């Protein structure tokens, strides 16, 4: 077997080791590459900036542990932004496990910003049904979520006083890793009820949601770790999103190197074969 043939059928494990190193080393020794903010991330930031202190934002945690490394930093970023502007947050989830992750983000930052549960933020919990839940919320939120995630009646919480439907919120932000998620929020909350909707989604999903952004159905969009890093840049702090961008930069560059290398090998092999013929 010639060297070219060997390289053509390179052991996948070599590639895996290279990618591991490309991810681990920058995480351990950050380079701190500056991050440029794209218009979709700026859009979501501006939409929150425009809100007055005391206004309410609805957060839908529609992701799960598997996508946590990508979506959770965005969740933290948006909660941090809202808390810093004294905006009240009402969380909920169309995915059962998302509610727990959202609660974790709330608790982590509530301590830092001195926020109280039930006054400054609340978690209404999970409700199965996807699009039906959003439709029901548009009609009557207290009827759809009579209790919070821990089973306490929402009437006991000052933050829920006067909350009837989507009109009580300045913005809805969906953190999503699939269906039900952003599409359902756009279809009901924006298209039918004219509510401003923003989103934080995985990088794989991002290209599919650009049409919504272009059509003005989303005020802003955070896509994958890059989106989280951009939001952190806007908030002027370094979180896991920014830390991950170094690793992502090196990993992307390495994949490009692999592609170029693979093609060089391919062309050498092809030339050899043609010579034989």
């Amino acid at each position, binding site marked *: 077997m010639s060297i070219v043939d060997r390289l053509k059928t*390179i052991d*996948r494990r070599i*590639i*895996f080791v*290279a*990618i*591991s190193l490309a*991810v681990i080393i920058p995480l351990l020794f950050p380079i701190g*590459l*500056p*991050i*440029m903010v*794209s218009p979709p991330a700026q859009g979501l930031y501006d939409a929150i900036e425009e809100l007055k202190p005391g206004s309410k934002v609805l957060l839908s945690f529609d992701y*799960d*542990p*598997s*996508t*946590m*490394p990508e979506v959770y930093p965005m969740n933290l970023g948006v909660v941090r932004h809202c808390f810093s502007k004294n905006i009240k947050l009402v969380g909920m989830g169309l995915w059962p496990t998302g509610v*727990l992750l959202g*609660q974790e983000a709330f608790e982590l930052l509530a301590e830092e910003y001195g926020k109280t549960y039930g006054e400054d933020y609340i978690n209404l919990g999970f409700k*199965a*049904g996807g699009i*039906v839940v959003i*439709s*029901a919320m548009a009609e009557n939120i207290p009827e759809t979520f009579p209790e919070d995630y*821990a089973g306490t009646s929402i009437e006991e919480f000052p933050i829920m006083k006067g909350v009837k439907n989507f009109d009580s919120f300045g913005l809805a932000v969906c953190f999503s890793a699939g269906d039900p998620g952003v599409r359902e929020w756009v279809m009901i909350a924006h298209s039918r009820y004219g509510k401003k909707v923003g989103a934080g989604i995985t*990088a794989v999903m991002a*290209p*599919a949601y*650009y*049409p919504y952004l*272009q059509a003005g159905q989303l005020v802003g969009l955070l896509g*994958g770790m*890059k989106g989280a890093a951009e939001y952190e840049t806007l908030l002027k702090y370094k979180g896991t999103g920014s830390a991950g*961008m170094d690793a*992502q*930069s090196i*990993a*992307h*560059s*390495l*994949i*490009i190197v*692999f*592609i170029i*290398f*693979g*093609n060089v090998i*391919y*062309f050498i092999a092809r030339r050899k074969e043609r010579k034989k013929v």
Partner: protein
Amino acid sequence: MRRQLPLAICFVMGVSMVVQFFIPHRVSQEFYRTILDWYRIVFAFSLVLGTGTLIKVHWAKISKKSKGWQYSIITIGGLVFMLAVGFITGIQEGTLFMKIFEYVEVPLEATMFSLLAFYIASAAYRAFRARTVEATLLLIAAVVLMLGRIPFGYYLWHKIPGIAEWILTNPNMAAKRGIVIGVGLGMISTALKIILGIERSYIGGGK
């Protein structure tokens, strides 16, 4: 009769759901919610059925000592253990059940998801070849997009992120919309064939 009844139910329900879509009346919305409740109830029962087959399949493997039967012990053991823990400690925050969820289930799922990074690299190395003009264009677009999504791309050439954004919002979107229109029509056509009983494989075919 074994075939006619499910087909009739499918037809009536299919037509009802189409009609329901155009009726905003409270009665119609209630009907929709009732159907969803029914779906959830059927789902709960089917979960029992599914778990039953899972146990059956793995029990058979263990008793026959088929290849890899040891894994089946872990599967059934895990299932029984989590059920027991859930019943004994409950599933509230801070319970053992939730701790296992947070410290075992979450990292395991994240690990599976993270395999994507490795597989993207190996798939790209193996399959991304400039064999034809179209493949070359795809390859160039992929490289530009990958560079456009990282800060390094900006430093290579400050216009790369803009070009990547353009690829996403123009050629990518045009192709996507074309596929989406086709998918939408295909969906309606399939749904119609099922409602009309032309397509009946899902109930095991037959005339």
